[in-house]
């Protein structure tokens, strides 16, 4: 049985910051990630990030991943275990995981869950055809693996992810036929939208996909305009030829690992789905289990980093690493509060009200 003081599950922006924050207080940390490189979703984000200097504003996601990952690897208090999928978290504080196909067990005094989010799916005819991808898959293929997902793409969803993926596809030389959005307004940031518009990509609001078609793979899609009750309007059918349909219809927190512990969760659409209840230190209703980042409620990477700091500091604090804890906690909390003050974070603010203990 392996032991550690604090285990952090997930090596994305929230998890890496958690590990760094806890280690900076003096705690001994083990960071587990199922991928072969740290960074989570950062490793496929070629665009520059928003926020302030504390969240590496202006740096590209891929570069932030590298900076944080280097800091984590250089920190002698952090043991990094990559290729490590956590199998289960148990009531007696034991965590089981599989590293390089080997079953292992680890006990810890505190646990930070930073497992991120899963992409939502969408119901339409033939949505299982090869060529229907989640937006994350398109990013992974292009930006991590250097492989093109196809030649021409139809994107479903004009939130930030849909807009960003459109831009990334254009950068890789792929044609983006259109972005369609079921809501009457674009959900993503205006600056992301403007980048796409300048490239001449049509964004069709109040539109949805009816069906994909193709023999053994996507060859195109039928889309149409929808009314306020989400029904297709007669005579608005359009046929787009495309070999990729990219779904960017939102994310939901990944808290499957925490479920069996019996923590309190709420269904909060503004945070993406089922979100764990937690106090201001990001501790859930099960003592010793903290959450940070998208698994605590879907937001931006910048707030994930701040939450990571808070969870890491708090976890360390609760086992006696108290070095200027209150001050550091307040700084991070205030910074996080500022990030959430804008009009684009209105829904997140409302959602957080429903899960705060």
């Amino acid at each position, binding site marked *: 049985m392996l032991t550690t003081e604090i285990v952090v599950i997930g090596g994305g922006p929230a998890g890496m910051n958690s590990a760094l924050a806890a280690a900076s207080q003096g705690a001994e940390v083990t960071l587990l990630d199922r991928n072969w490189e740290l960074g989570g979703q950062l490793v496929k984000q070629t665009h520059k990030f928003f926020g302030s200097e504390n969240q590496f504003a202006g740096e590209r996601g891929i570069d932030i991943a590298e900076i944080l990952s280097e800091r984590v690897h250089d920190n002698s208090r952090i043991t990094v275990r990559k290729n490590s999928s956590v*199998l*289960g978290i*148990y*009531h007696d504080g*034991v965590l*089981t995981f599989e590293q390089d196909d080997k079953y292992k*067990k680890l006990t810890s005094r505190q646990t930070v869950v930073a497992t991120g989010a899963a992409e939502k799916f969408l119901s339409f005819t033939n949505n299982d055809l090869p060529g229907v991808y989640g937006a994350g898959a398109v990013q992974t293929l292009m930006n991590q693996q250097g492989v093109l997902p196809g030649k021409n793409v139809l994107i479903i969803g004009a939130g930030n992810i849909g807009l960003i993926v459109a831009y990334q596809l254009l950068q890789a030389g792929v044609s983006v036929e259109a972005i369609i959005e079921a809501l009457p307004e674009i959900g993503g940031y205006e600056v992301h939208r403007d980048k796409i518009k300048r490239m001449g990509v049509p964004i069709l609001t109040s539109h949805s996909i009816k069906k994909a078609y193709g023999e053994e793979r996507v060859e195109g899609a039928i889309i149409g305009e929808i009314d306020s009750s989400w029904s297709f309007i007669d005579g608005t059918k359009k046929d787009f030829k495309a070999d990729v349909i990219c779904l960017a219809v939102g994310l939901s927190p990944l808290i499957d690992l925490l479920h*069996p512990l*019996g923590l309190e969760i709420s269904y909060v659409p503004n945070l993406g789905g089922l979100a764990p209840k937690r106090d201001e230190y990001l501790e859930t209703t099960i003592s010793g289990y903290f959450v940070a980042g998208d698994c605590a409620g879907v937001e931006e990477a910048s707030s994930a980093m701040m939450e990571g700091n808070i969870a890491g500091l708090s976890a360390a604090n609760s086992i006696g690493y108290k070095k200027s804890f209150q001050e550091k906690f307040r700084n991070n909390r205030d910074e996080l509060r500022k990030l959430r003050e804008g009009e684009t974070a209105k829904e997140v603010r409302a959602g957080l009200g429903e899960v705060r203990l």
Partner: protein
Amino acid sequence: MRNSTEAVVIGGGSIGCSVAYNLARMGVEDVVLVEKSFLASGATGRCAAGVRQQWGTRENCLVAKRSIELLEDLPDELDAELDFRQSGYLLVASNEDEKSQLEKNMELQNKLGIPSKELSMTEVGGLVPHLNVEQAKGACFCHEDGHLDPFKTTFGYARAAERLGVEINTNTEVIDINYENGIESVVTDEGTISTELVVNATGPQAKFIGQMLGLEHPVEPERHQILITEPLEHSLDPMIISFQHNSYIQQVPHGGFIMGYGNPNEPHYLNYKHDWQFLESMANKAVQQLPPLEDVRVLRQWAGHYGISPDGQPILGEVPGYKGYYLACGCGKGFMLAPAIGEGVAKLITGEEPSIPIERMNIERFKTGELINEPAVV
């Protein structure tokens, strides 16, 4: 929610829904079912989904046999797909004692019309090529036993009951029962229902309802843990019961291997926690029995409960001295017995002749000491 009704069934598991459906089918038009969580949220939804007749007592055998008979037509009757698959149960003995017990049970089963038979190791090899028979001393097989989907069955009963006018209230918890020379009403967190008849179908939680009437029902929750693997192409027909390993393993229609066991010696309380020790020991048990499972991935694990009685038999019928208060507890195998228990208890209530020896399974037996010990529980 209705505030007055002919009968209240407490518990939305397979037995509760079967009782409610059968009552309505037999003419009790006004039935209300209350379930504190969602349908099949307790023992039913957590069970290993097997149905078998190979028991060691006359009563268990007959109730199980009646269930299998009813299951033949049940999908049509309920107008629901139940995934009932008669792919058999294979009971494996690893020593002479177990073997002679199996033979004794088989004799009884055959006498009662259950077509179980002893298999040679060659026959076992033909039936389950993956099975490691090194340790096996004997095996018993009944082709009529098999698999039944707990969720589909419970929902099938529930929907059919609703079509007959039964009112089903989920997320409704019973907090008290008023009794004065007979049942008067059931108090729930959603309101009070006047009624003269209550059926306690709460399985491992039956004693908590009993306590509301000042009764001590001898039903204790025994935790079982179960895991399911990733789905694979069909390669295992029967449910494998091993007395040596105290475990059950079957491949469900979806393709996953479901397996589990309980530890009868651990303290009896409602404990929904599952542990890694189970994961490891079940994996060992499984690979010892079916070596090719070694490379198969586990998807999930969970815990549920048998509502265990001192003799391992169901407790059915009216509680003597408590007019209108009925028990319908399967006691450790409730899901597989639900069709016959539902029918039997409903017949008892409506004055029809039950198709199972229900009077033998009354709670009174624990007072008189006429226990009917079941030797074949795993």
